[in-house]
């Protein structure tokens, strides 16, 4: 697998948010303003890079049976570190992200990449994959936040936009607007992205627990081959 392909797939072809449909909770919750979205994207990217590197380095050490708990502990460690850094150097961001910062632990993107990529590939590839995925996640958050903030609040990064400021669509910054914009963006990706709209339903390939979930709602089991092409 070459490096560029590995890096670029996270941004469009396998965009974790818009194509793999992972990490929906933080996407919906933190995309009310551009600053929040970028902060969340950066925090998650840092955790993702660290966890992917360490999990990939330890992939031969961690026993297969207890791998998920091991990953969770590793990820939780990195999240705590990031949480403390944000608290110390960007207290305003810590305030506005609130509960969603510690909840990076249960962000499916991070566990999903560990399970789908890092435990099968070497350290360098995993790091590249993590950077690509992190940028893809941040980009998707940025797109959503731009739509929601400019039209919902009439501002961009806190700067007022003349005409939109007087014609706010307040609902976009509230919860229903989040679901709505997210739905539109995915529909847009389905329509215009070159890949086939593979996602007929909720993203099971990416979910680390797809196997047990498969008993309930998903028809197909995890397709490792499809993910790892």
């Amino acid at each position: 697998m070459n490096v560029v392909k590995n890096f670029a797939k996270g941004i469009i072809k396998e965009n974790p948010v818009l194509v793999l449909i992972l990490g929906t909770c933080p996407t919906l919750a933190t995309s009310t303003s551009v600053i929040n979205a970028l902060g969340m994207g950066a925090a998650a990217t840092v955790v993702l890079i660290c966890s992917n590197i360490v999990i990939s380095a330890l992939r031969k050490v961690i026993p297969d049976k207890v791998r998920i708990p091991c990953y969770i502990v590793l990820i939780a460690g990195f999240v705590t570190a990031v949480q403390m850094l944000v608290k110390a150097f960007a207290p305003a961001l810590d305030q506005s992200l609130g509960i969603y910062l510690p909840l990076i632990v249960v962000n499916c993107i991070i566990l999903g990449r560990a399970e789908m990529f890092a435990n099968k590939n070497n350290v360098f590839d995993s790091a590249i994959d993590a950077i690509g995925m992190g940028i893809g996640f941040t980009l998707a958050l940025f797109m959503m936040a731009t739509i929601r903030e400019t039209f919902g609040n009439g501002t961009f990064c806190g700067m007022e936009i003349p005409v939109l400021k007087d014609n706010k669509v307040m609902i976009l910054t509230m919860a229903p607007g989040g679901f709505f914009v997210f739905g539109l963006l995915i529909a847009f990706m389905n329509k215009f992205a070159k890949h086939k709209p593979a996602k007929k339903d909720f993203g099971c390939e990416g979910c680390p627990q797809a196997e047990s979930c498969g008993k309930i709602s998903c028809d197909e089991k995890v397709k490792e081959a499809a993910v790892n092409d």
Partner: protein
Amino acid sequence: MIKLIIILLSAVFINNYVLSRFLGICPFLGVSKKLDSATGMSLAVIFVMLIATAVTWPIQMYLLNPNGLGYLQTIVFILVIAALVQLVEIVLKRYVPSLHKSLGVYLPLITTNCAVLGVTILNIDEGYTFVEAMVNSLGSGLGFFLAMVMFSGVRSTIEGSDIPKSFQGLPITLIAASITSLSFLGFGGVIENLFA
């Protein structure tokens, strides 16, 4: 007492975990296709939320805080929840097989459910007492249940309708969720004034 009722009602309606706080979206979108699986999943969530709060609240207050280890919250909570879910599954399997049969498949899914971790952390952040924390967990669980059951009804209506191609599957589900969440906006401000 009134404070407890306010906490309960606002957790169910105003700060609904799924529809206004965006926690637990994964099961909300993934398991809400059929009414019986939606019910099973949400009952399991209520159950785990209550047990998790009952265990994590004392740990934070009597173990972590007095020893200055508050920053270990995230690691400790996720570990406790993961271990707890396993334990509950084993206990149920051994002693209450009928309950295990109906909730068993959903339990492993809950370990990495952000709603459960979210409720335990929020209980600490909000400075609730033990009783208030338990009530808040119950309310959050009930809110999750309500959203799941309502939404599974909405989804069964979508199944049969004619939808533009690019909207099929997830996009239309999200837009339906948006409308469902719109209905919850109406509760804002009601509960605080109910007892005023």
